[in-house]
């Protein structure tokens, strides 16, 4: 572009910092618009009077301004802004919406690498996400959701909406929220599982749904929320449940590729505040069997039984071993032992100890737990009785398989956790716009 172009910067420019030079003749502002910021200058001269400079210096931080300025090239690169080779020489400046002089938090604190301002930042949600990093994170998250929908729609999936107020706890157990429902009570859905499966039985062949999931787990960890966005897939297959695994992993790989190819700017922006290794993956996705995982852990010195479930430290260690051997952050562990899976998991026809179920891991942490589901009402009843589950409570679930159900399987991922692990962040609350956990209910 030619030097000295005039430009009118629209409404949402917000100066996060204003500096007045000592003699009062110049005022530097940094104007920000979503992910990018640029230095601007008001100097006493033909277009600006001394009063204007004083006015500019007194604008509260984070106010919204309208600016008419001339773009000028600078010789020295401006390190502190995203636009490093130009600055604006302001000719007119107006305040559109003034911010209060005392802000609940300083945005400079928000951009510091470690979580000092975390608590305050979580509360002032109208302010915290204004940092370039947060903007980048949430834009990336929006893109993940979009890639998920696009990839599945191109594969012929149908998007469905499932109810969140349900009459019976779908996964069984104590981790449900109860709501009062007129004269009785109802529950908030822990997962759309039951309804996804009913849609498959209703001959939709391939479905997915995007919606909130509510888990009343009293876990205060870096990766648990009580409410999160679940991206769930369910599909009927023709010959072998590996078709389901391939479909899900292909969707994930398309999401990763879409982010890798088109969102490098956002990934770099996040990387400045939270540095991490870039995310690596293989196509087609690596699939290891549970017994192989156990053997790798045993080789590394861990003692565990053949049918024992993987503890979180073991999962992380296995993730590191896989990363070292295959150099991938994303892989599938197939053929879990039957004993550690829910009652509706289809057992392995070749080996009674194992099941047709799988978990997927990103950076050593689990993001998806899925399986081939039992589609025969008789077998389902047997397995439920084996697990001592009250058949009355799941009667309608079992009934849906009595009228002709295709073999099917699926799984679900959490949007926030996937984003967190893709970017290498350490707390899922950073990727949740308004996080919910056992101790947080507002904003």
């Amino acid at each position, binding site marked *: 572009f030619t030097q000295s172009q005039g430009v009118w910067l629209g409404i949402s420019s917000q100066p996060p910092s204003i500096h007045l030079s000592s003699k009062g003749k110049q005022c530097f502002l940094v104007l920000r618009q979503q992910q990018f910021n640029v230095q601007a200058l008001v100097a006493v001269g033909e277009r600006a009077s001394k009063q204007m400079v004083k006015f500019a210096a007194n604008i509260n931080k984070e106010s919204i301004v309208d600016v008419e300025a001339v773009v000028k090239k600078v010789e020295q690169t401006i390190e502190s802004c995203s636009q490093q080779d130009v600055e604006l020489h302001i000719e007119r400046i107006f305040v559109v919406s003034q911010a209060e002089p005392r802000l609940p938090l300083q945005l400079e604190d928000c951009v510091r690498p470690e979580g000092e301002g975390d608590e305050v930042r979580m509360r002032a949600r109208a302010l915290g996400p204004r940092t370039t990093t947060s903007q980048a994170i949430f834009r990336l998250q929006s893109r993940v959701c979009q890639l998920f929908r696009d990839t599945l729609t191109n594969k012929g999936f149908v998007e469905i909406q499932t109810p969140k107020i349900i009459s019976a706890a779908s996964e069984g157990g104590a981790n449900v929220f109860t709501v009062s429902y007129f004269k009785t009570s109802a529950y908030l859905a822990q997962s759309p599982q039951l309804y996804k499966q009913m849609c498959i039985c209703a001959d939709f062949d391939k479905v997915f749904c995007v919606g909130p999931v509510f888990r009343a787990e009293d876990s205060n960890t870096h990766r648990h929320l009580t409410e999160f966005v679940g991206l769930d897939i369910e599909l009927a297959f023709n*010959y072998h449940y590996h078709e389901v695994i391939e479909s899900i992993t292909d969707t994930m790989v398309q999401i990763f590729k879409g982010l890798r190819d088109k969102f490098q700017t956002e990934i770099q922006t996040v990387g400045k505040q939270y540095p991490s290794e870039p995310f690596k993956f293989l196509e*087609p996705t690596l*699939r290891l069997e549970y017994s*192989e*995982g156990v053997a790798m852990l045993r*080789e590394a010195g861990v003692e565990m039984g053949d049918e024992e479930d993987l503890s979180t430290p073991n999962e992380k260690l296995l993730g590191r071993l896989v990363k070292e051997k295959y150099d991938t952050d994303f892989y599938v562990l197939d053929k879990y032992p039957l004993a550690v899976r829910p009652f509706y998991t289809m057992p392995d026809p*070749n080996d009674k100890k194992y099941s047709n179920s799988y978990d997927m891991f990103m950076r050593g942490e689990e993001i998806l737990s899925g399986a081939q589901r039992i589609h025969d009402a008789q077998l389902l009843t047997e397995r439920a009785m084996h697990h001592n589950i009250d058949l009355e409570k799941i009667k309608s679930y079992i009934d849906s398989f009595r009228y002709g159900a295709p*073999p099917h399987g699926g799984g679900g991922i959490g949007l926030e956790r996937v984003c967190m692990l893709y970017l290498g962040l350490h707390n899922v609350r950073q990727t949740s716009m308004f996080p919910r956990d056992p101790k947080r209910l507002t904003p």
Partner: protein
Amino acid sequence: MPMYQVKPVFGDDIKTDLPTCMYKLPNIHAQRSASGCSEHALQNGTEVVDPAFRDLEVRQDKIMRRLYELKAAVDGLAKTVTTPDADLDQTVTSLSQSPTATSFRGTADLDSLLGKDLGALRDIVINANPARPPLTLLVLHAMLCQRYRVLSSVHVHSSVSGVPAQLLSCLGPRHADSYVRQRFQLGFTLIWKDVSKLQMKFSIQNMCPIEGEANVARFLFRLVAPYPSDPALATLVDSWVDTAFFQLAEGSAKERSAVLRALNGALGRDPWLAGPELSLADIACYCCVLQTGPAASSPANVQRWLKACENLGHFGPANPLLQ
């Protein structure tokens, strides 16, 4: 493959009304399965009826078998006219030996070569740059598949945005049993990645990664067949392998023509480069020679040797990538 089985929908006691006005044939199926001794009776019946017929059948079988043996012998002889005697033993004398017998000596050997099996697939992971596909390793992979049950898979790493289709199918079609990794003795995972040097990883606890196509080729060859026990011969093999990879594949034009002259000289004296049989030296040199130029541009002895190599049939996997 065994899968969830649907229970039979129809019962098997459907009654049908047969017409009574037609001539009824005795049921030919019921006769055989009705009683155990009826089969015996049938055989006896034919013996009684026509013993000469059975003798005739037996004689015919013998003649056909003899014919096949002769045909195979002639084929073998035809090959020896163009190829030194590496495969003569196999084609002529080992007809009765089934191929599966040789491939199942596999597990015991693998345990001694690679260490005890901990109950999981022993997976060899090779990271290669798609700009320089390792032909030698593809040939060795084919030889491994003949001796062991190998689960082969090809992946593309995220550091590479895309590879041509022939690189994705270079290890051959997917094995029908590949959904159960446990059924295989060895895994061969080829990952196309942006690496500067070819790299192999096998046991991350006990082994460091192996770099360089020559070194990985040596490792894989030892799983296929042992190195010659004579130290001089073993060194000769190693020296040719190094020559192939360093001077032929990566050298300047002068170095390459020098190597081709040396090859020409060596092949004038012996049919193979090191000893009486095909060895790793021949495999490596074949791949590197053809990577640098078409066969027709090599000296005469080298061309004859290239043809002999092709006749052995091991080099099939490399050919599509040479075009």
